[in-house]
């Protein structure tokens, strides 16, 4: 396995960059981070719609979440890649197709994490904000979201680990992320599939394991800070 690393590490890390397109592990991180940055605000909006008292919004958000959770991500990727360009009349690059599919998919899941955090806040918080005369937006912005988002940091990071793994599906659209790069290396060497794919597995594991440890650390901290006030 070490010889694979020694020989191919620049390609596995950066793709052909700087002499060609960026790829490899860096690309995996870029896709994951761009996806997270786009997923986060849309998940907040869907969660707010689901917890709002406007029935139309509530139902629309519920329908969206139910449908997306009922289909595999791979199928969503195909729909975005093959169908959306026809519908929009303009081609979408594999890179953005993949990100769009992951964002739609993860928005459904992350919005549920956020909804749970919003609904778990003590009822007194909303009542206290109402009693001051705060209208909807300052109430959400100053009272509900700061608490709910803080409490759901572990859940958000957890979804982020899922996202990192889901970027490997970029392989089917020939997005040059880590899995695609590893497969290319494997095709080149031909005789060492075990080494190549063990390296691939180890890389994903190392990243996700680090993140889950971070989640554990944060969970402990959040519990410490909020247990005393949870009853209030």
């Amino acid at each position, binding site marked *: 396995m070490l010889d694979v690393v020694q020989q191919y590490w620049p390609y596995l890390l950066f793709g052909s960059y700087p002499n060609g397109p960026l790829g490899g592990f860096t690309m995996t991180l870029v896709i994951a981070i761009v996806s997270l940055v786009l997923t986060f605000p849309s998940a907040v909006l869907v969660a707010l719609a689901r917890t709002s008292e406007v029935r139309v919004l509530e139902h629309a958000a519920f329908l969206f979440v139910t449908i997306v959770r009922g289909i595999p991500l791979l199928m969503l990727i195909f729909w975005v890649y093959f169908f959306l360009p026809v519908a929009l009349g303009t081609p979408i690059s594999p890179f953005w197709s993949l990100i769009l599919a992951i964002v739609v998919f993860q928005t459904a899941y992350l919005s549920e994490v956020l909804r749970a955090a919003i609904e778990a806040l*003590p009822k*007194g*918080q909303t*009542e*206290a*904000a*109402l*009693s*001051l*005369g*705060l*209208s909807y937006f*300052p109430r959400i912005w*100053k*009272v509900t979201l*700061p*608490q709910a988002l*803080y409490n759901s940091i572990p859940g958000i990071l957890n979804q982020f680990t899922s996202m990192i793994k889901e970027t490997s599906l970029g392989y089917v659209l020939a997005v040059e992320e880590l899995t695609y790069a590893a497969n290319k290396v494997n095709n080149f060497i031909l005789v060492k599939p075990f080494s190549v794919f063990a390296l691939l597995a180890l890389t994903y594991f190392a990243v996700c394991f680090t993140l889950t440890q971070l989640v554990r650390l944060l969970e402990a901290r959040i519990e410490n*800070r*909020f247990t*005393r*006030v949870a*009853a*209030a």
Partner: protein
Amino acid sequence: MMVPIITLESVGKSFGSFRALKSVTGEINAGEIVVICGLSGSGKSTLIRCLNGLEAIDEGRIVVDGIDVAARNTDLNQLRRRIGFVFQQYSLFPHLTAIDNVSIGLRRLQRVPTEEARARALVLLERVGLAHRSNYVPAELSGGEQQRVAIARALSMNPPIILLDEPTSALDPEVVGDVLAILQSLSGTGITIVCVTHEMGFARNVGDWIWFMEDGSLIEKAPPELFFSKPHHPSAQRFISTIWRSHERA
């Protein structure tokens, strides 16, 4: 002639098949202190929560400060800015410091500049004896301190009315006096106070009226001296003797 600042006309409220309030009628004049008492489940909390629209009523009419609380075109947010509310469980915002809890209304609703809002909040914290704790978050304050901050928050918009829902029930006995002393200091300032409490000493010394509730009905309204010496209703008599007995035990 006194003009009532709070008027209740045959107010009814149900939770499913449970009738929490049954035809409650009463008037409170500006500057008066009304103590609502009664056993658990008698509708005291529901009644006080109806006054600022936290609970919607099913029947009757509530007029507060000239505004019909249940009317469809009433802007509840506007009305609530003129009614302070203090909860049994304090319900401070845990992510904000004491001073930010008190100044959030001024800043968000009256658009008072941050510095001025904080200065005004500090004056209020001073009044409840917590100016030195202004930068603490609720988790770092004791129950009694949290409730004092909550009172300062309720007073922050300078409301003509303040409602308190069992403000001392969750507190340790030794700090109940601090909170009651603050409430007592508000009497005579012109602010109207409606307080649900089991503190009969407070009711007797500070209250102008005692409202006694049973099973969702307001069955006795009397000044404290009359209520405690000659209660009309047998349930009120029983209630008073129970309360005194438990006081003697304590």
